[in-house]
């Protein structure tokens, strides 16, 4: 602290740093602020004054969207799909991770590397056969048709993260419980899961964000507008209102708002999950 105070404001290194950080902050902020403020302008004003504060605040742009059934339907669809994806991922991944962490069996490491393969390739490479499979299963145009592949693709990372955490639960604990007649399943339910809340929150948040933002899978699996999650819905909206940017900007702002709120609430889990998964995955 005293060190920072001792440096004079005219230290060129400090000045350069402040300038550089300021420039990058402007680079990041301007598009975001222009979007938020653009939603408060009329189309005519947007054309002559895209940067500045609105001279006349058009609350109506936002109100129209907030009071439309369409907006809430998109959010609801996204919420349903993401909740399904998170729930199923947490259940299946934690069970598998528990087995890989605590149960020794023949082929364990082979099966784990098999799952790990999932880290290597993008869903896009197999999206056509995936579409045909989902169609043959009768899941086309259903929430599950989107959520199940999302779960499958999130499993590799989730199992790895959870397994590493589960392994840190002292083995003596499991041993003692087993000697006392506790079953593996009870141990999993009453010891492992409660102890693992932080990592479960992290994995859940990451899965949620990925599912919430996903575009390609819903695009391929859903045909009915009524089922569209918001990334699909906003593309349709943009198509309909092609150059009425003031409305589109208001719509964008209102759809990214939940993401930003979630981020502010769960930033610890999001950053932890991304960097933990990245640095050691």
């Amino acid at each position, binding site marked *: 602290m005293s060190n920072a105070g001792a440096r004079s404001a005219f230290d060129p290194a400090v000045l350069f740093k402040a300038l550089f*950080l300021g420039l*990058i*902050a402007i680079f*990041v902020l301007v*598009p*975001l602020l*222009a*979007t938020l403020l*653009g939603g408060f302008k009329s189309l005519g004003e947007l*054309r002559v004054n*895209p940067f500045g504060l609105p001279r006349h605040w058009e609350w109506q742009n936002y109100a129209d969207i907030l009071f439309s059934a369409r907006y809430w339907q998109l959010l609801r669809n996204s919420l349903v799909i993401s909740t399904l994806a998170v729930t199923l991922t947490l259940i*299946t*991944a934690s*069970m598998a991770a528990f*087995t890989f962490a605590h*149960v*020794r*069996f023949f082929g364990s490491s082979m099966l784990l590397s098999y*799952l790990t*393969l*999932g880290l*290597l*390739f*993008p869903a*896009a*490479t*197999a999206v*056509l*056969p995936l*579409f*045909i*499979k989902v169609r043959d299963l009768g899941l086309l145009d259903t929430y599950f048709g989107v959520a*199940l*592949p999302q*779960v*499958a693709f999130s*499993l*590799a990372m989730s199992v790895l993260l959870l397994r590493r955490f589960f392994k840190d639960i002292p083995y003596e604990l499991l041993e003692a419980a*087993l000697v006392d007649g506790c*079953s593996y399943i009870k141990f*999993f339910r009453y010891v492992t899961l409660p102890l693992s809340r932080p990592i479960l929150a992290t994995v859940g948040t990451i899965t949620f*964000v990925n599912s919430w*933002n996903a*575009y*390609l899978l819903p695009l391929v699996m859903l045909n009915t507008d009524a089922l569209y999650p918001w*990334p699909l819905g*906003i*593309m349709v909206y*943009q198509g309909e209102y092609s*150059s009425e*940017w003031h409305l*589109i900007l208001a719509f964008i702002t209102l759809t*990214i708002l939940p*993401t*930003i709120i979630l*981020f502010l609430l769960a930033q610890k889990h999001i*950053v932890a999950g991304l*960097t933990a998964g*990245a*640095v050691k995955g």
Partner: protein
Amino acid sequence: MARRIAITSPVGVAGEAAPQVAVRGPGWDGRFTVLILFLPPALLLFTLFVVLPIGEAAWYSAFNWNGFGRPTNWIGFDNYRFVLETRAFWLALRNNGLIIAVSLAVQLPLALTLALMLAERFRGAVALRMLFFMPYILAEIATGLIFSFVYDGDYGLVASIWRAFGAEPPHLLASTDTAMLAVLIVVVWKYFGFHMMLFIAALQSLDKSLVEAARIDGATRTQTLRHVVIPLLYPTIRLSVFFAIIGSLQLFDLVMPLTRGGPADSSNTMVSFLYNNGISRMRVGYGSAIGVILFAICVTFAFTYKRWFMRDE
């Protein structure tokens, strides 16, 4: 360790264990129950929706098939030939190369510089970290739409700057000369914060005694940075490069709202090329061939990179 093996060594196979089901506790039967209940859901989902489709893509790519009924029109490797003969495919491949180049040459140095600045504690550091990370949290679709406004030739931010100088504003996204450049700028905007966070996490878990030792030995700030800090970051840098390349190969969501791969295929990535040619027209064989090529590139890259650069991690 020894105790662990004694208790959990695989003493039998499923058939032998079955009669002992009544015995509760640390026996094979307890593990057997877990095995048959806990593993299948994950393995089944993974196999059904990840592994099988990759295999099926290889199979379908040998057919001329529109996705209805069963594939019957076997054409061997012709789909691959068709893909490789399409100029737009090579454009898409080149664009993925450009994205990789910009990620490595612009994005990662920027992220590293910012991380070195923001890993130190000063007022506003945490707020700036969060701000720079924000674009990464936004959906690609939202990001793309925001920038299609920024670039809009009539209402956008770029256009109004042009007009301020009295010039006729360009339609950046509608010109084959500038569309890809515009996409590349958005790529940097969106992803540099993620790499910055990786570097900050690494810097914070760094062994500080090494840095202090260098300072005590009389190394300047720059020398410490060049000869101590950066080398200690090499594992993270290698990882960051890995993510940047794998991510660049998969880019799709960002391109769709900006240009849909156009104009004239000038800003297609491999995935948007796959979407435009395989999925929206349901040319399953052709699209699958593109998918298999992309898969081969990703896997070859991942294994080569791991072998060459990440041997000890």
